[in-house]
């Protein structure tokens, strides 16, 4: 089974802090994704990576950056956390094999910025 793990289930940070959210997948997937989930808005794509050191902006990249130094690990960085970044963050991965686009999700990190 594909396993996607996220470093924390719950995180509380103060405004202005630098925040790192880590995601690791164990299935050698090429693609990795970061989403934020807010009530009534569904999932919105923040950033997408299709290879090591390669990244592409999603729909809402402002205030975020990402890092992918190894194939299995994709980090989301909040350079200076703000209260409007309080949200559930979900990481996902997918394989390009077969062109099927099915994504596998981690359990999520609920981030609160105070």
């Amino acid at each position: 089974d594909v396993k996607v793990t996220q470093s924390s289930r719950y995180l509380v940070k103060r405004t202005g802090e630098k925040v790192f959210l880590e995601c690791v997948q164990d299935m050698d997937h090429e693609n990795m994704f970061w989403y934020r989930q807010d009530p009534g808005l569904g999932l919105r794509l923040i950033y997408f990576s299709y290879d090591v050191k390669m990244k592409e902006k999603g729909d809402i990249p402002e205030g975020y950056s990402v890092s992918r130094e190894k194939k299995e690990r994709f980090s989301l960085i909040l350079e200076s956390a703000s209260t409007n970044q309080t949200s559930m963050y979900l990481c996902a991965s997918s394989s390009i094999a077969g062109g099927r686009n099915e994504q596998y999700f981690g359990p999520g990190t609920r981030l609160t910025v105070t």
Partner: protein
Amino acid sequence: AQSVTQLDSQVPVFEEAPVELRCNYSSSVSVYLFWYVQYPNQGLQLLLKYLSGSTLVKGINGFEAEFNKSQTSFHLRKPSVHISDTAEYFCAVSAGGFGNEKLTFGTGTRLTIIP
């Protein structure tokens, strides 16, 4: 670009009754369609997917969905729901084939089962 509309944000259903969760999509190219389920305090889990072939797709936990190209719909159905089906359900679409890895998600439908 693709888009997804889930018209019902909340659907209450009595236990053992049938349910249909609606999903409509918009795309100028052929698509892949997915339904994901999110149980409380968990990530998303794939319920079923349509890639090609038969328009009736069966998934896990007794769910099924029908791809209707003329109506651009992919509604999710279950003939008899259980308390354990209480969750949020997301419909998603991607352009088919290689090089189109991104999914576009709907805003979700919260299914509440009434005992």
